[in-house]
């Protein structure tokens, strides 16, 4: 579904991604784990067309999109749930969701949009309860649900989530990840960037580990959880607990 080869991207003179290659197959949850500043978010924003790729190919559903505009990419079926949610605080929950349907409405798909909205209310009943409330008044977890709902309104084939657990209490994170798992069960394909490696690997099929803009490891979620480097760097296990666990 998504195939990236030798992607280079950055900001000004700063090179952030240095030749990253990865892929996501239909129906998969793929996670990218890495520390702060490793290039995870740049990777997603490059695919979304918000940051220009300097080199390399990004092929989505058979079409090269590395030079396409963000709205074309959304229309092609690739939606980003950005880091920090980026909810419009002064708009209502319903208005926020309808913004996500922008590309659908332009195609005159009013009936489909109404159906989708209903679907999202079924998935997140809390959003229905607060449909008329301003986005800025929601809790962090509710805002994350809203951000996911807004992305779904574009009927994406690939949903990219950037740090959905950020700033949320562990119990809320659990709920959000449960929703992500359900999204996949409903037939969606998901690319998930996370600092919370444990939570991400628990729901993912495969993953990539990125360090200073380079991918250093690819494997199934199980393999990555087994890998001692991953355990030390991202799962907070020291040597003793590793040996105890085995």
């Amino acid at each position, binding site marked *: 579904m998504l*195939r990236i*080869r*030798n992607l280079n991207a950055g900001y000004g003179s700063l090179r952030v991604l*240095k*030749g990253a*290659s*990865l*892929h996501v*197959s239909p129906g998969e949850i793929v996670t990218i784990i890495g520390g702060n500043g490793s290039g995870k978010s740049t990777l997603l924003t490059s695919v979304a067309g918000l940051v220009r790729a300097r080199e390399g190919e990004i092929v989505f559903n058979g079409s090269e999109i590395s030079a396409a505009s963000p709205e074309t990419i959304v229309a092609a079926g690739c939606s980003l749930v950005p880091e920090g949610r980026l909810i419009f605080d002064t708009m209502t929950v319903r208005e926020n969701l309808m913004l996500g349907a922008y590309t659908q409405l332009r195609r005159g798909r009013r009936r489909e949009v109404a159906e989708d909205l209903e679907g999202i209310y079924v998935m997140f009943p809390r959003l229905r309860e607060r449909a008329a409330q301003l986005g800025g008044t929601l809790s962090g977890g509710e805002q994350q649900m809203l951000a996911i709902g807004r992305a779904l309104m574009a009927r994406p084939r690939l949903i990219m989530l950037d740090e959905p657990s950020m700033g949320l209490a562990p119990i809320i994170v659990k709920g959000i990840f449960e929703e992500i798992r359900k999204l996949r069960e409903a037939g969606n394909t998901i690319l998930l960037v996370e600092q919370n490696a444990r939570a991400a690997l628990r729901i993912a099929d495969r993953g*990539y580990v990125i*360090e200073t803009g*380079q*991918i*250093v*490891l*690819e*494997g199934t979620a199980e*393999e990555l959880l*087994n*890998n*001692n*480097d991953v355990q030390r760097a991202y799962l907070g296990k020291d*040597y003793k607990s590793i040996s105890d666990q*085995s």
Partner: protein
Amino acid sequence: MIYNSKYESMPREGLMQLQIERLQSTLNRVYRNVAFYKNVFDENRIDIEKIKSIADIRRLPFTTKEDLRKSYPYNMFAVPLRDIVRIHSTAGRTGRPIAIGYTRNDILNWSEQVARVLAAAGVSENDFVQIAFDYNMFTGGLGLHYGAEKLGASVIPSSQSGDVQRDIHVMKDYKTTVLLSTPGYALRVAGNLKEMGIHPEELNIKMGLFGAEPWGDATRSRIEESLRLSAYNIYGVNEMMGPGVSGECGEKNGLHINEDHYIVEIVDPASGEPLPAGAKGELVISTITREGFPLIRYRTGDMSSIMEGVCPCGRTTLRMERVTARTDDMFVVNGVSLFPVQINDILKKATGGAEPRFQIVIDNLAGEDMMEVRIEVVENMFNDEIKKVLALKNGIAGNIERELGAKTMVTLVEQDSLAAAAGGRTKTVVDNR
């Protein structure tokens, strides 16, 4: 049966993507974690970011057995030693041994590769698999053991007790259905059966997977006939984990390579230049999932070729021709690289499959290399008419020149005379230069 169709029958395009991803991440890891690779890439001014496709792999330097010997025991390991859960070793017959480290994931991947190779030959969870490889520092025994267990077969870790007849009793009593061993061992089993008065059909063995020694079709037929089983070729390299690099499927037409774990190339053993599919040369392998002991472009010293084209078995992976020779066996006559096995093939054809024993003697007279092939006369080469024997002799010389491009003299000698002259051990190539 295809054990893991997701990877073994993956569309080529997807496999190429997976290979480049894994190659790049392996390069990033070895550059960070293995001093040898950092130095060798820096010295050769290699920017690993420039490796953008599988074809770019040829820009990378080779890793040789000598490099591994120099780093004995642990300098090639890419992870801290505490992450290593197993260490195997090469025999070190030709120099310092090589220590090979495995992480937990390496062991899991290795088991998976072996399980695939066993399943490709038709081994299943219903089989009794007797492993007559040594269980020790050598990778054969334990490597196959883990794979057979993963497959769910009933594993009989008989090893080689040193007493073939005892092993045969195990085979008979435990109703072994699959034998894993060297081809040489299988032939010893056949010989001992005769001695013990056991008919091969009293055993339950229906197939055998043989490796760790070069062997050809003549040996295959001999094993199949004498043990009444179907024989399959498996291939592995100690430095690449061990068995599990490739194995034959039911078609018995080339060995399927586990390409999601290894990238395989064929190069000219003399120049190191890459050779196209179909051409015979040295097998060079890069690991792309290995954590503990990753190797880039390792020169295996094994001679093979890559077979392109789709296999009817449904696997999409490339196949390699069975390994028939080692680069160590290569000799050069007037600039032409030759292998004893090529001479053997020509003799086999000329004598109707007899494969007579032979010896190659090379001299240099006044700057010109002279090659002589001495052939022990076997029964079906005899003929009352001297004319026909001469024709056969000249025919062999002609075929060698035509097929291999090397002028040679052919001498027919008495049966067993070569071995007798050498005190029992015939040297195939005698180089007097």
